[in-house]
């Protein structure tokens, strides 16, 4: 058996359970090789489930630990980490939860978990000093629509079909009432954070589309176009300046430049 085959079998035993380790001779002093291998299986399961629970504390509050643990146990077998930095593990857990049949009666769970994930993610980012609007205003007028902006790293845009932001606030402020009525409602959120703090707020749909587009490094004109398509009362000028007054812009990329002609403040 080649080393590659051996490692495949050990991987299967650790991720899925012991039955996959055939034709492999283990030695363990006075002990039993299989039970010793189980130490690694136990570690895989326990450490990753614990990690996910800690990484989704609001979701654990919403669903209860037993249910979230059950979900995590299945998820870690189906979707092992793909990179060695564990703080990045769990990004695909929210969409997975959305599709899990056990949560069919909690249709807002995936969206809520996605917000949970993003809050944790932005809170460990750093913000850098923002570019002020006068730097943009100094550009040639006919170059403005082709400009792309780079925004603060601790930023994300989420939409949901349920008012999960209100639900999250109840969790964060410990003010959840005994019973809560939840009605479907389309919401568009900006999530922002850095250095241990975070917040989130609703945007109008058009504002969301504009900011999401800018965040995705789409040229300003196209991002505004997207927003105007949805709402012809969208004000591109006001939306643009708001990005600067909110200290969101970290660099301005002109059309011809890619990254070589960045204009900083």
């Amino acid at each position: 058996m080649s080393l590659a085959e051996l490692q495949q079998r050990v991987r299967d035993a650790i991720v899925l359970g012991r039955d996959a380790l055939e034709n492999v001779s283990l030695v363990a002093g006075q002990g039993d090789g299989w039970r010793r291998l189980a130490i690694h299986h136990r570690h895989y399961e326990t450490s990753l489930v614990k990690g996910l629970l800690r990484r989704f504390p609001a979701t654990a509050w919403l669903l209860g630990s037993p249910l979230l643990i059950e979900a995590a146990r299945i998820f870690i077998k189906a979707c092992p980490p793909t990179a060695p930095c564990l703080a990045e593990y769990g990004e695909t857990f929210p969409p997975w939860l959305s599709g899990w049949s056990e949560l069919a009666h909690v249709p807002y769970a995936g969206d809520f978990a996605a917000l949970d994930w993003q809050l944790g993610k932005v809170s460990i980012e750093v913000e850098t000093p923002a570019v002020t609007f006068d730097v943009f205003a100094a550009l040639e007028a006919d170059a403005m629509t082709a400009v792309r902006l780079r925004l603060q790293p601790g930023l994300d845009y989420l939409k949901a079909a349920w008012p999960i932001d209100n639900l999250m606030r109840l969790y964060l402020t410990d003010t959840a009432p005994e019973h809560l009525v939840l009605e479907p409602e389309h919401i568009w959120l900006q999530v922002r954070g850095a250095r241990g703090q975070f917040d989130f707020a609703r945007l109008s749909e058009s504002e969301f589309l504009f900011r999401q587009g800018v965040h995705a490094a789409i040229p300003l004109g196209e991002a505004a176009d997207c927003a105007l398509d949805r709402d012809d009362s969208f004000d591109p000028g006001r939306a643009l300046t708001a990005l600067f007054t909110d200290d969101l812009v970290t660099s301005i990329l002109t059309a011809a430049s890619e990254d070589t002609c960045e204009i900083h403040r």
Partner: protein
Amino acid sequence: MNKRFVIASAFAAAAAAPSILWAQKPAEMPSFKAEKCYGIAKAGQNDCASEGNNSCGGTSKRNSDPKAWIYVPAGYCTRIVGGSTSPK
């Protein structure tokens, strides 16, 4: 009117206007400290930085009771009325 023209004009107008006209900051949003949520609360200013957890040892190798890390017995979703897209 051509949308591209509308957009380009709006940007140019904003650039030309005194910045004071546009300096309407959003309402103060509550800012939450990550220590409440994203890691064990320890003394220090950046408790969110307690995420990570790569190590080369492992207490998870021990055969300990997994209930030890169950800390929320039941879910709040059981107290939510409505919240279903179809009747159960």
